[in-house]
């Protein structure tokens, strides 16, 4: 939402008639990139129902993370969610789709099939054992299929990864991929609380607290006290 929080590494320069924010280019670019990921509607198997369709609907709401604009065209997308098994016939097509995406592009491999071949790893003659044999993957989300909450966990991991990266000096350098598995014993309620915390941390400003820290806060309080005593 682009609201200013205390964690913003920026200086606010004031001048008559307005103010100016001075921040680092990396921060501004990364923040924009992380919060406006446009996924590609690329689903091959069961995970597509959970990852792309159920999360896009109202119950689990992908748009809270700015990632709900699912695009059917690769040229407009910058996040590829590999939802499902990749077989040898599909692998060249997937590579082609990946290469058509504009930089910077990110890949989340969801589900056991896309991570390692999953249940089809043994005895299958046509499966590609993990999507990372074909294209570089940023975040792995294990599960068969992962819950939508687990997918959000992976998306948050990707957003953190993007925010920490350097986009100006070393634009092409990829960070190491991460395995964004839900920690052991974590329930759906815990995930919801965590997501809530993440969202609030970035997007909510305590207006009253903010106002009290201002130099004119004492004057306003005085004015409110006076006006209430008159009435």
């Amino acid at each position, binding site marked *: 939402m682009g609201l200013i929080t205390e964690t913003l590494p920026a200086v606010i320069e004031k001048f008559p008639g307005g103010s100016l924010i001075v921040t680092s280019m990396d921060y501004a670019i990364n923040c924009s990139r992380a919060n406006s990921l446009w996924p590609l509607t690329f*689903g091959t198997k*069961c995970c597509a129902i*959970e990852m792309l369709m159920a999360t*896009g609907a109202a119950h689990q709401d992908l748009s809270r993370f700015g990632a709900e604009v699912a695009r*059917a065209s690769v040229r407009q997308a910058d996040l590829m969610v590999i939802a499902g098994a990749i077989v040898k*016939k599909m692998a060249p097509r997937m590579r082609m789709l990946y290469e058509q995406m504009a930089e910077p592009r990110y890949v989340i491999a969801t589900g056991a099939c896309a991570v390692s071949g999953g249940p089809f790893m043994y*005895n*299958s*003659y046509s499966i590609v054992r993990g999507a990372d044999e074909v294209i570089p993957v940023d975040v792995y989300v294990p599960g068969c299929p992962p819950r939508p909450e687990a997918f959000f966990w992976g998306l948050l991991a990707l957003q953190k990864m993007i925010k920490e990266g350097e986009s100006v000096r070393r634009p092409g350098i990829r960070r190491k991929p991460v395995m964004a598995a839900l920690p052991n014993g974590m329930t759906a309620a815990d995930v919801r609380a965590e997501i809530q915390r993440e969202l609030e941390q970035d997007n909510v400003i305590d207006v009253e607290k903010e106002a009290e820290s201002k130099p004119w806060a004492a004057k306003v309080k005085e004015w409110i006290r006076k006006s209430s005593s008159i009435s």
Partner: protein
Amino acid sequence: MTVTIRTLNELLQPSHLPAHPLATQEYFVNMGPQHPISHGSLRLVLRLDGETVKEVIPVPGFVHRGVEKMCESLTPRQIVPYTDRLDYLSAFMNNWAITRVVETAAGIESNERIETIRTLMSELQRIQSHALWWGVTGMDLGAFTAFLYGFREREVISEIFEETVGARLTMNYIQPGGVMYDIHPNFVKRVKDVMAYMKPIIDEYDTLLSGNVILQERCRNIGILSPEKAIALGCTGPVLRASGVPYDLRKMENYGVYNKVDFNVVVGAVGDCWDRYYVRMQEMRESIRIVEQLIDSIPEGPTMTLRYNLPIEMPEGTYYSQVETARGVFGAFLVAEGKSEKPYPLHFRSPNYNNLWSVTALAPGWRVADIIAILSSLDLVIPDIDR
């Protein structure tokens, strides 16, 4: 009878050269494998004249994992989870198909309670699957709101499954000899609540989308499938019934406890996209009726009649069993050698494969935009086609 096999390259040659320099030339357009309508990876090669479709050549196989070959090295209990991953929107029914064939082969008895639970779960999933299909069809035809409504109901039914089964999509619940777990104590109350909630919802669906002029225009009299053609192509499920053929395995085969409940087989009159749409809407209502009749009288008894650590011995022979999934007849053909538990070979007869090829009969003569409505009304699940 001779069968000529033509490769895709041969099919893609233009059938005739234009006679006149100003005549239009036929050309080919690829639809897929990356296409929003395919809901997976399916490639359709369209031979077009202007915008009119002359021919459709489906090219499946982008999700072919070789499940049937894999199953030759697995025991029956190990095969069950793989059937989840074929038609993942009818996971319970797929489980049931392989379970039925194994139970027939090994002579395993099941009891009334097991059969009732299996029937209940299957019907709940039929409602869920059709609700999802309704939402996605709305999205395909340009009404995104329908998608949100369809998934709202899917979540409600998913929560029932999650409570009892522990999974939302890949169930692995119906096993040879019974079901994996007993139903959750909350199950009966929850299902009743959801059914009371679902009844007006189907009417809401009708209010929201069915009467819409755009939907009617795009579906009525588009892609008419005659009953003869539907039978010849091997179509099953709502696609066949929309053409006016009252073929429903729930009535024909008497598996589960379907012979105890009162429900209608919904048939269409014309066989166009609209009939296929409305047959599914009515099937949701019929499924709600079935669930409501069964939910009050789940008999007592064990939910598993077989010990887990014992191998399932199947005498030598060939066995076939089929069930009615949300998309049609799903059959499992199994050859037992008698020496081991493992089948050799195992073949799945999937409804989507036959329903897909009906597009070759449906599409010619229509416009490209009508292909979207036709494919949407067939309700294809691609991994079930490719296996």
